[in-house]
């Protein structure tokens, strides 16, 4: 345990599971939610050091969560499968900490999370 809290957001149960495995093994305290609305509620509690979130989700998507989460939100790492995704333009304006392309190797994600915690 390193005492850092990470919120992971994805509508894919498989993705949540593997993200939880990876971050848990690295000593983070992980909370997983399956949609944007729940993510927004969690972020507003103010307890998270980092948010790792999928862009494309039914209902409220990752970019929308980022935009609505208020200031100052914790550093957000967005996951996307499509670099040219229109929605990302809005996210970049909102100072997203990093955008990570799927598929990615777990150590790369851990590096990004570590840099977000340090920021």
């Amino acid at each position: 345990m390193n005492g850092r809290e990470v919120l992971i957001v994805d509508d894919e149960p498989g993705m949540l599971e593997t993200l939880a495995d990876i971050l848990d093994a690295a000593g983070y305290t992980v909370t997983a939610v399956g949609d944007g609305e729940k993510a927004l509620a969690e972020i507003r509690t103010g307890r998270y050091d980092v948010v790792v979130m999928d862009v494309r989700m039914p209902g409220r998507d990752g970019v929308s969560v980022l935009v609505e989460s208020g200031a100052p939100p914790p550093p957000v790492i967005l996951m996307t499968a499509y670099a040219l995704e229109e929605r990302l333009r809005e996210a970049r304006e909102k100072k997203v900490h990093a955008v990570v392309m799927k598929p990615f190797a777990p150590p790369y994600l851990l590096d990004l999370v570590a840099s977000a915690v340090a920021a």
Partner: protein
Amino acid sequence: MTLSETAGWQVLVVDDDPGMRETLSDILAREEIPCVTAANGRAAELTMQSGGIALAIVDQRLPDVMGVELVDRLKSYDADLPVLLLSGYASAEAALAAVGKVEDFLVKPVRPEQVVSAVRNGLDRRWLRVRNAELVGQLQQANAVLADNVRRRQNELATLIAMAAAVSSSSRLPLVLDAAVDVLARMSGTTVAAVYLLGDDDKLSLSAVRATAWRPPQRLSKFTERVMRADVDGHECALAALNSDGVTVGAVLLERNEQEADAFLVALAAQLAVGVENARRSERERATVDRMAELNRMKSSFLANISHELRTPLTAVIGFARTLQGRGTSLSDEERGRLLDRIETQARRLARLVEDLLDEANLDRRALRVSNGPVRVPEVVDRVVSSIVEPVHRLTVMLPDAPPVVIADSDRLEQVLGNLVDNARKYSPVGSEIVIGGAVTERGFELSVADQGRGIEPEFLPHLFEPFTQADIGDTRRDHGVGLGLSICQGLVEAMGGTIEVISDVTSGTTFTVVLPRIVPGPKGPVDTRQAVARGAV
């Protein structure tokens, strides 16, 4: 000009003295100038009334009227009548009174050469005046014709300029036609102006019209002349063909109360034809650009979808594999089993997606093969129902007691039914009922999947079976998948010789029906379809 050249005209001699009348008649007769005489004012007026008097010689002293006064009366019949006043002495008073009214004075006793000279002068002036008047009349007429021609040409020129502006005012055909008939209707004298375009029926169809008199017909027959005058519904009209590259594309119809030049109509029609052709070209270009933009949008949307669908399971697979790799030795058997299970699930998902893409590509190339044979539908339904993991809906199967054997491809039919059931599960609320039904109808065997979901928007229905489309409920609310399922279903069902159709209502849900027309004749005859077997909930 002499009097003899103007047959019928005479000189009138008015004098109460018979000797004087005779003298003057003799003098004129010698010069072959016909004359008529009157003894007083009254007789002179009567003669004047009957016409034909070219000149009058009037004695100053008459029994019933003063000569000067008679001059006025005679001139009231003919304002141009030259008059010579005859007086017995050189009277200044008489001369003054007559100034401006008479051509000359003759003083008694008259000398013949003086009379002849004065008469000839008077007649010459008279004919000159007549000739002048004629010339002026002709000139005025020529001027009027010229002015009319100039006005017509100006009108035509103004119309051609306005038409040039009208045909370039817009790149949209209806607006161009509207502007064109406006120009034609504004031409002075136009009562009806219409433009016809050639339709699929090879007839000219009324496309734009301005009419104050009568309404031209909806259809006109094609004609071969470039310009012609024709009777249209009892109205004399000018018609000009709109030709583009030597092909008739339409016609202009004009009813006007003045005749325009053929060359003008040809020029007018040529301009309008260019306008029509330009507008049509623009419309084709616009359609192409719209189509390209739509294709581009579809391509982007497809790429975003396909990337998400392919890369998300791949990410999970890599994640689980790394976890296994990194902590393999410290993991319990149970934990290792879970990770391997997850890897398999994600890999299957990927495999199915790739299969869908290949199917779609093959459908696209018409290369997808089905191998049809006898199929027992309940077996296919069983396989689909038993493959469902995580059942969260009430699934009811209602098949006839003894369902017939149909001709189809068993694996492909399972793929179709599986897809329809997946869709039903995806688009309807947890706990709601999904019914797989079957019935024999006059169309064949009908296999249906009915849900109680949110239904399909009517505007989306026509695109339901198109590839890469998904019910759009706001961009981010898309469900998983790339929008290939129904497109593939339709392709497969059609390859099996059947059809697929959908009935949807946003209040009661959606029913997909697969109609398989080929039934293997059974020994039992028609099957009662009302009896159904509930296979319980899954």
